[in-house]
């Protein structure tokens, strides 16, 4: 194997970080923050996903094609959601005179 196995320490730290983020997201959800609730939930989920991607899935040490492949799924999902919302959010209610 050309690549070095990751250290045990890194894995344990990653798990601790995930546990902390899980506690944080449940904690934050208990406060009335309006739209910030959804934002916080997604932001923390994003952080968790990044921890899994970079440490468990070893994106940290992967080559360029693999990193690209990892981004593509998320990027295309972003396109789908963004342009679909572009329609739904700009619909104007019908006014009858």
């Amino acid at each position, binding site marked *: 194997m050309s690549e070095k196995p990751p250290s045990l320490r890194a894995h344990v730290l990653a798990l601790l970080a995930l546990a902390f983020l899980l506690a944080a997201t449940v904690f934050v959800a208990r406060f009335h923050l309006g739209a910030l609730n*959804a934002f916080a939930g997604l932001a923390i989920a994003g952080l968790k996903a990044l921890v899994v991607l970079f440490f468990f899935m070893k994106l940290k040490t992967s080559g360029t094609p693999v990193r690209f492949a990892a981004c593509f799924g998320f990027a295309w999902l972003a396109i789908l959601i963004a342009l679909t919302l572009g329609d739904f959010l700009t619909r104007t209610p019908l006014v009858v005179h």
Partner: protein
Amino acid sequence: MTAESTRVAEQFDDAAQQREAATLGMWAFLATEILFFGVLFAAYTVCRLLWPDAFASGSRHTDLPLGTVETAVLLTSSFTVALALRDVQLGGRRVAAWLFVATATLGVVFLAIHGVEYHADYEAAVIPGLRYEEVGPLAPAKQLFFILYYVTTLFHGLHVTIGVVLLLVMAWRVRAGAFSPDDHSALENTALYWHLVDIVWIFVFPLYYLVGRA
């Protein structure tokens, strides 16, 4: 690393090329998986914007303590499978096999807890198409929440089930000595798949369990 220590399929020049292809292939497959689930997340986004209160109300039907435990279970299982892979890379076999079994067990625990949730949902009659007895102002729009909830969690559960089977097969093969530190693409790919299943759940959790909890 010697070429003899790995089996190279005839279309490849060497083991490095074979490994590179396997890893890239898996990541490409994961990208398509993200888009499979992505449709459900996109539908969720639109419907939640159209019916914010119904979604908050629907979300309060889910079981937050159980959901939190499920998340913890899956996160831990990602950890154990990563450890298993590390052990194989260090030349281990027995511990690695047990770690794969442990990961699969966590997967089964996840499915079992989810089964408990589904049962409670059935008792509460909030399963559209099967037993749905919600009334009140938000009932029709809440149905959208539940449909998306079930399609997403069932599709995710299907992935967990496939993962558990894969993990058990891998545990067995590790024990039989089928892999070496130089040659374990199949294990790596199984682990990658399992991590992705985890990532999907990481997003499911705040979107379906944590709305309207304040």
